[in-house]
């Protein structure tokens, strides 16, 4: 059983943060909210999302599992204005999702969850450095780096106590340093890893500019990017594997 009413904005934010990595996903309809975990086909980027029942206008579920084509569902959600409400109801018999937006009824055929790539195991990471900053700072770092290179280095200088972003292109370079004062919080530790901008750019799209974003980093380790949406009732954690420079 699954029946819920949610604002278009909240649903769209949730879907967008998953669709930057995968085309299809499984959605767990738990009693206390939705959960999605997915990894991209190359096993480089992972998303772990939860949307609490409190983020919905109304929410009823009893632990079902559905498979969805994300772009389909995003298209439908896109039919609503951001403030509008979207009503979702699962028909267990036909395995279809009935969606209603202001009188518009849409019946979405679901995908067999077994046909969707297996949900990833979450890596067990012990990341020594933690940086808390505004979404807008992530955005300008990624955007500037993308002008010069395909990849970006994220690190923490544990002696001088600042977080830095480095991108080196063929001719131009980008460098940004943010000290404790510029950041919301900084937990210093040895950290320097290189990441593909292809992935980071996509993840960045899903990060609201005013969100408080936590980056957990290590030395040649995946980065964990954590932020909330829907007034803190939704949580997204991205994990991105580093590029390791071949010797």
């Amino acid at each position, binding site marked *: 059983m699954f029946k819920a009413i949610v604002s278009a904005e909240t649903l769209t934010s949730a879907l967008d943060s998953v669709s930057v990595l995968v085309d299809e996903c499984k959605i767990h309809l738990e009693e206390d909210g939705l959960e999605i975990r997915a*990894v991209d*086909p*190359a*096993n*480089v*980027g*992972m998303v772990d999302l939860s949307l609490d029942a409190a983020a919905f206008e109304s929410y009823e579920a009893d632990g079902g599992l559905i498979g969805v084509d994300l772009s389909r569902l995003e298209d439908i959600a896109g039919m609503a204005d951001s403030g509008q409400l979207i009503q979702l109801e699962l028909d267990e018999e036909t395995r279809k999702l009935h969606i209603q937006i202001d009188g518009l009824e849409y019946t979405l055929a679901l995908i067999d969850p077994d046909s969707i*790539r297996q949900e*990833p*195991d*979450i*890596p*067990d*990471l012990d990341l020594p450095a933690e940086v808390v900053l505004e979404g807008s700072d992530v955005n300008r770092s990624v955007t500037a780096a993308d002008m010069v290179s*395909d990849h970006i280095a994220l690190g923490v200088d544990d002696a001088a106590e600042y977080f830095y972003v480095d991108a080196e292109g063929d001719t131009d370079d980008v460098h940004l340093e943010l000290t404790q004062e510029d950041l919301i919080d900084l937990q210093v530790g040895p950290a320097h890893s290189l990441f*593909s901008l292809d992935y980071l750019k996509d993840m960045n799209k899903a990060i609201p500019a005013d969100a408080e974003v936590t980056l957990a980093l290590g030395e040649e*380790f*995946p980065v964990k990017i954590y932020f909330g949406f829907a007034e803190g009732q939704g949580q997204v954690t991205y*994990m991105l*594997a*580093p*590029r*390791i*420079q*071949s010797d």
Partner: protein
Amino acid sequence: MGNAALRDIAVIEEIPFDDVEGVVAVDAHNWLYRYLTTTVKWTSSEKYTTAADTEVANLIGIVQGLPKFFEHDITPVLVFDGGPSELKADEIESRREQRETYEEQLAVAREEGDELAIAQLESRTQRLTETIQETSRELLRLLDVPIVEAPAEGEAQAAHMVRRGDADYVGSEDYDALLFGAPLTLRQLTSKGDPELMDLEATLAHHELTLEQLIDAAILIGTDFNDGVSGIGPKTAITEITEHGDLWSVLEARGDSIEYGDRVRQLFRDPDVTDDYSFETSLDPDLEAARAYVTDQWGVDADEVERGFERIEESVTQTGLDRWT
């Protein structure tokens, strides 16, 4: 070339590239040939012709074709043909004759300035020259891609390597891989999109045949090494073999014959292959040297290969999250 009629018999399904894992023993001539024809068809010849007028379109082809393997973390092992078997010599001769016909037509097309015809014919007149053979091997070595030299048919050797468990798939467009006993063959490795997986065991089970019977059926239809019996297509071949048991009984019942039938059969059943090879599956390409070789030494237009080299570079260094789980 193999026999396309085998497609109607083989159990083939498209599989996602992500499901492919391990080592692919690639029939190098078959693979290179595909890239040569497309490169020549779509790229203007100055971009791969040296000052001394030597054509090295193969270098572009290799740089375009390899990233796919690297990106999916699959190890390609390129298996080169040795000397042609005696029977196949006929096929090579007839291909040579066909090429001569194309070359004559090409000369006419050039005279008439028919661009489309020129492009089409140029792609058909491609052959693996001595230079192509040598430069391909050298570039593969720089990219740390393993090479195996087959005593005869590259495809038979590739199948042998999969049977021994040293590789997971044969990579070939050629349906003959099935007859050489390749348990799993990946087709369309040179195309965009997902490959096709040809499954020997499933094929045999589907028709309730043994491999020996499948070979006999193929001989009836016709292979690279023999002309088939006229009037026998895939369906009839299977029915006849099922009914009569083997090649000779079918021929006897029909009053037909196949020249060298027993030798063709032997070529598939017991091809000339070697156990004398070794390779490492973790590759460490020297991209700088490979770039220099292709663009500086052989004068290939850097724009034509940069994307491919970048893709290799990117894929070699990108780790997967599974490393941390």
